[in-house]
């Protein structure tokens, strides 16, 4: 018999093209739900209008709150609306139910890694919402002058930051999904997601938090989801501080990915020994 020594030697660490198929399939799934799409677009438009009028009203008698000017504040909350679909509430990854129903067996007998598969699959939905909802809102905001493009370098760094945001967000839902399989309960991060959105700075920048809350928010990984890219875009992060801000985001992102890998290999071990 010809021995096969190591199955990992021929497996390239990341076969991007293979996993992008999951992205493609999930993107197309978004296209199938037309009613859902129009509802999402409507509510996004309404939320954008609310945010715009709210902050205009707040700033009516002042030019700066907590050191944040109205234009910076507008740039912050409006770009938040543009990317809110991309960094939306994490998709229910159904890891617990997959295990309980036994469907996980099909995932485990594919020559693909389930963690990466889910990451790229969820990306398909995120990209769909970015293109279908975020982009039109972005264009309207640009044309009406409500939002202004920063210089190209800032935009490029913003996009880099956004990619890391996505990975961090996905990782929080992946970790919580795997945990629901351990705890056998359905309570995951999606049930406390509003809290995550608040601590991540989606609704108000962290500068607005009272001191003690700001300290907590700074310690949590969630600000790497919304605050960092939005602060880069809006100039709340000084140009000189962008790189150090990205570096701290990279640390969080890497830590979350390492956590995902650890928790997932633990789960696979448990599954293959105890059978779920």
């Amino acid at each position: 018999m010809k021995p096969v020594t190591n199955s990992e030697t021929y497996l390239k660490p990341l076969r991007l093209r293979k996993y992008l198929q999951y992205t493609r399939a999930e993107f197309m799934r978004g296209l199938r739900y037309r009613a859902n799409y129009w509802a999402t677009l409507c509510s996004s438009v309404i939320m954008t209008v609310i945010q715009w009028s709210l902050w205009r009203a707040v700033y009516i008698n002042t030019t700066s709150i907590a050191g944040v000017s109205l234009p910076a504040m507008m740039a912050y909350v409006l770009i938040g609306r543009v990317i809110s679909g991309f960094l939306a509430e994490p998709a229910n990854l159904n890891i617990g139910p997959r295990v309980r129903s036994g469907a996980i067996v099909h995932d485990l007998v594919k020559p693909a890694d389930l963690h990466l598969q889910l990451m790229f699959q969820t990306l398909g939905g995120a990209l769909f919402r970015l293109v279908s909802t975020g982009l039109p809102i972005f264009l309207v905001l640009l044309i009406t002058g409500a939002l202004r493009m920063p210089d190209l370098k800032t935009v490029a760094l913003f996009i880099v930051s956004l990619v890391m945001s996505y990975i961090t967000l996905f990782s929080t839902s992946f970790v919580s999904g795997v945990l629901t399989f351990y705890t056998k309960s359905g309570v995951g991060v999606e049930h406390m997601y509003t809290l995550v959105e608040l601590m991540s700075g989606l609704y108000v920048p962290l500068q607005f938090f009272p001191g003690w809350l700001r300290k907590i928010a700074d310690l949590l990984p969630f600000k790497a989801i919304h605050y960092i890219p939005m602060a880069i875009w809006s100039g709340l992060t000084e140009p000189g501080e962008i790189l150090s801000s990205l570096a701290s985001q990279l640390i969080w992102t890497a830590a979350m990915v390492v956590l995902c890998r650890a928790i997932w290999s633990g789960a696979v071990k448990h599954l293959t020994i105890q059978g779920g």
Partner: protein
Amino acid sequence: MFTDISNITCGDDPVIIVEDLIKHFRIRLDGDDFRERVRLFFRPEYRTVKALDGVSFTVRRGESVGYIGLNGAGKSTTIKLLCGVLVPTSGRVIVAGIEPHRHRTLNARRIGLMMGQRTQLLWDLPVKESFTLLGKIYDLDPETYRANKDRLIDALDIRSLMETPARMLSLGQRTRCDLALTFLHDPAVVYLDEPTIGLDVFARERIREFLRAEKARGVTIFMASHDLDDLEMVADRVLLIHQGRILFDGTQADLKDMFGGQLGSLEDTVKRFYREEALG
């Protein structure tokens, strides 16, 4: 590069080797009354379930084996061990020269698994998208992919279903599509767990014919089923498992000979076998 599996194992060698395979699961005790449940909550106790209790058999390349057993006999556990999604408690499993649980991903390229109770189709998308996805995941080169896809579509008569979202298929249609996907990447071994469950007689007949044709192409088929007519048509050999042990391993003719050959169908023979050898 691994779609051509013929160079991995040699011609007539056994493709599956199972030696003294044991799989035990630990189940947490639940307790009968309230007080006991509380006690077990704080101090859990376990009991061991012996799903497989020393199973040995081999399957040669190109053979088709029917795996027969009552509910809970250990059929699905065996298939999961062969697929590498369960780790043996002790004993050995070798499929095409490797231990599946140590090389799960490599093993995954060479095998196909179809569970009649589950689907691997993309639920919301047209069936053709599931083909595209799996073609890429198994790294099939475009020619192999197209040839296999066409062959399977014709053999299972599913061309008209390719544009339909999977969730709108009937059970029989879904099963045919799932079968086609299972064979798409030229697997050396295919494991089928109740492939015809819930299907009407004509659908079952079509699937049997399909499996016989795939067998003729040299695919090794390992099929667990409660439908003994299926196995009678497809299996060269049958394994009877009962309470985690193999009670019979041989051809259908061998099994029928045990009772002087006077029994007609495999189903009658198996029933008689269980009454006399296992349950009696």
